[in-house]
């Protein structure tokens, strides 16, 4: 389940996801990245990090599990309202040892979200601790003042 399948076996459209409630992911284990049309320059597994996204009075907070990603291996970008998180993870087989048992695969983490609403891109704060990324995304000031929350009951 964890292995990323070779590209070309089928294509899926955009894997950007709206920051809205969606179907629950599997309970445990790592989430494999969906196949996409893009081809990578080198063979490496990619996983979708598990995230929590919640609203605060001032904006959104995205919390992402990125075990093995250090601050230097992390890239957070926003382009055309698409927030991208990419975390690089080093291969884990120690030198002089051979693999005896493997329950999880090692690979990079990648996930994208489309920000729906007016956010202050320049005000995004990123914080990395113990392999967990905290992103505070503030709403644009004028949007915060004018915003009327309409929530569906379902």
């Amino acid at each position: 389940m964890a292995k990323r399948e070779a590209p070309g076996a089928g294509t899926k459209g955009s894997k950007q996801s709206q920051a809205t409630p969606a179907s629950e992911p599997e309970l445990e284990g790592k989430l494999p990245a969906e196949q996409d049309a893009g081809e990578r320059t080198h063979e490496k597994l990619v996983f979708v990090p598990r995230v929590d996204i919640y609203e605060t009075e001032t904006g959104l907070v995205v919390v992402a599990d990125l075990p093995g990603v250090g601050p230097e291996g992390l890239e957070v970008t926003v382009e055309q309202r698409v927030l991208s998180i990419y975390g690089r993870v080093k291969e884990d087989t120690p030198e002089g040892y051979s693999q005896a048992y493997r329950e999880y695969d090692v690979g990079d983490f990648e996930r994208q979200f489309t920000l729906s609403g007016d956010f202050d891109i320049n005000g995004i704060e990123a914080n990395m601790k113990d392999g967990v990324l905290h992103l505070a995304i503030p709403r644009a000031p004028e949007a915060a003042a004018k915003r009327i929350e309409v929530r569906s009951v379902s």
Partner: protein
Amino acid sequence: MIARTLFGADPFRNIRRLQDEVSRLEFPAVNAFVNQDGVIITAELPGVRSEDLDILIHRDSVTLSGERQTEADDARRAYHRRERRQGRFARTVSLPFVVDPNKVGADLLNGLLTLDLPRAEEDKPKRIHVKASKEAGHG
């Protein structure tokens, strides 16, 4: 690749899925690497602080227990997504040999635990030299 083109799908997929189903019940998932002097175990523990992690070594088993950080006012929050796991965990892993608990090295960096478990001296295999007997020559 050939299998996939022949059958349209990976024929071992269901078997692997079943294996995943079983291992998914246990947290954390671990990887193990060995050589003749010891074993290295790695585990992904995002959000677990070193003070919240307990490592217990007994002969040829290691138990990892602890708690994944929970944030304070969870209940009142309006969540769009909630995928990260929280709460207490405990897992015991059997090792291929007895380790020396005094020489164990544990490193928790960026949510990744690396346990260096050297094999106990008395558990290491001893090489017995067989002396060639000169008397049993061809005479």
